[in-house]
């Protein structure tokens, strides 16, 4: 019993300590951002690795998710003779929920894990230490550009996911199932609100991008500098990101759409 309480205490203290270190890292990153504006090429380079290279998985997944939504939505709506509303159903599901959430989960798997592994390996091969000894702050030179790139990429990727998803649903709905083209688009335009739906979705994806990139970079920066340690950190990035995304999604949805 005592051992159990002791273990619990150690676990809690350890978690608190990590949280503290993560917050300190975040503060260091944020104070480094103004300086980064002078050397934006560093961010552009990372935008390519973090954002552009994630486009393929986002677009392909978006297309399939949209197509499935189109099929399932049609089957449900047709019973009520409301298949014309397929466009609304699909656009609201994607823009409000699936776009930000699924693309953030994919982003954590594709870009987050890569960031953790890269930074972790830089640490274990003493590259970060080497920079410090060359009087270059690794947080400003290595971590901050990646953070900013993640923050910028995520909303753009989520928007792409939603757009391609709607296209996929249209292909299935109109091309395969014969939903009227005019009704599909016009109802979508009429019922999808700029502020309530699109902007809230964008806010969600910015929050997810912030959290996922933060977790990924912290795990890499704080990893035990061995092959096993980097492997564990990479796993933790994906698992913690998934928890954070789904948990925060509930909180944000409750704040945005709960009356």
């Amino acid at each position, binding site marked *: 019993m005592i051992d159990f309480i002791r273990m619990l205490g150690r676990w809690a203290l350890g978690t608190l300590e990590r949280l503290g270190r993560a917050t300190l890292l975040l503060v260091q990153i944020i104070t480094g951002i103004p300086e980064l504006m002078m050397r934006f090429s560093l961010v552009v380079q990372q935008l390519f690795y973090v954002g552009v290279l994630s486009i393929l998985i986002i677009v392909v997944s978006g297309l399939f998710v949209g197509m499935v939504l189109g099929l399932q939505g049609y089957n449900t709506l047709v019973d009520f003779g409301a298949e014309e509303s397929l466009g609304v159903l699909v656009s609201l599901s994607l823009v409000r929920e699936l776009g930000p959430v699924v693309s953030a989960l994919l982003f954590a798997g594709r870009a987050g894990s890569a960031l953790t592994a890269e930074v972790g390996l830089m640490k274990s091969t003493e*590259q970060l230490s*080497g920079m410090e*000894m*060359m*009087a*270059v702050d690794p947080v400003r030179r290595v971590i901050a550009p990646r953070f900013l790139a993640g923050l910028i990429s995520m909303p753009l990727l989520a928007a792409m996911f939603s757009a391609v998803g709607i296209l996929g649903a249209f292909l299935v709905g109109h091309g395969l199932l014969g939903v009227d083209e005019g009704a599909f688009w016009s109802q979508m335009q009429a019922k999808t609100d700029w502020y309530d739906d699109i902007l809230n979705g964008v806010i969600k994806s910015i929050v997810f991008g912030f959290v996922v990139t933060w977790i990924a970079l912290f795990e890499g920066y704080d990893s035990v500098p061995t092959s096993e340690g980097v492997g564990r950190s990479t796993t933790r990035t994906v698992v913690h990101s998934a928890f954070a995304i789904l948990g925060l999604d509930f909180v944000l949805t409750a704040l945005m759409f709960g009356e």
Partner: protein
Amino acid sequence: MTPLIKIRDLHFYRGDKAIFDGIDIDIYRGKVTAIMGPSGTGKTTLLKLIGGQLRPQRGSIVIDGEDVHKLSRKALYALRKRMGMLFQSGALLTDINVFENVAFPLYEHTDLPESMIRDLVLMKLQAVGLRNARDMMPAQLSGGMARRVALARAMALDPMMIMYDEPFTGQDPISMGTLVNLIRRVNDAMGLTSIVVSHDVDETMQIADDIYLLSGGKVIDQGTPEQLQKSGSDWVGQFLQGLPDGPVPFHYPGTEFADDLLAGEEHR
């Protein structure tokens, strides 16, 4: 002559284990000073303490009149620009090529025009004999070449001192000879101060002006290579000649072998 680096009463602990238990070291300008000792005596830790990456629990390290651990972050970074450090692995940035690695500190800390950076980088690479390897990526280099590139990079900002962390470990005889030669030549040609941390006795004895022997968190002995060779201490004799048994026992301390054999199966 006042030393460039003055280490006084340095104490450093990892958990309860004392890595340094009150050591004093003087490192003089223009000399190659070697810090030697068995693996695990904290030689690398000492370099990190000198570079301000770690903080001692007690004692001071004064470099060129400045106490490393009392400096503000900005002043510490300014001091680091005047130090070069060669990590055991080379610590080259793996996503850029040899030329860009050597140019890295120049791009980060100076506003020199591109053509001048090119000339400077080629000069440094010429000095380590790798001018023609400038387009290679770090992954394509052998261990010895990577260390030479790292040396070129450490020299890029013309520092006042260079610290070498185990420069000879795992090198074939040719690259070992090259490195031994380079460290001495670079030190004398550029008027540097060098600190070499190593446990390779023969190579280090060849180039060092002063040697400090560390063990168990203390300075066991110090002096020129000749003085150490004449030292009467058993420990120094064992270390310098690489004898398997002596004051440092072959067997890790613990229970007696006979007791273990007779203890039966229940005690593994």
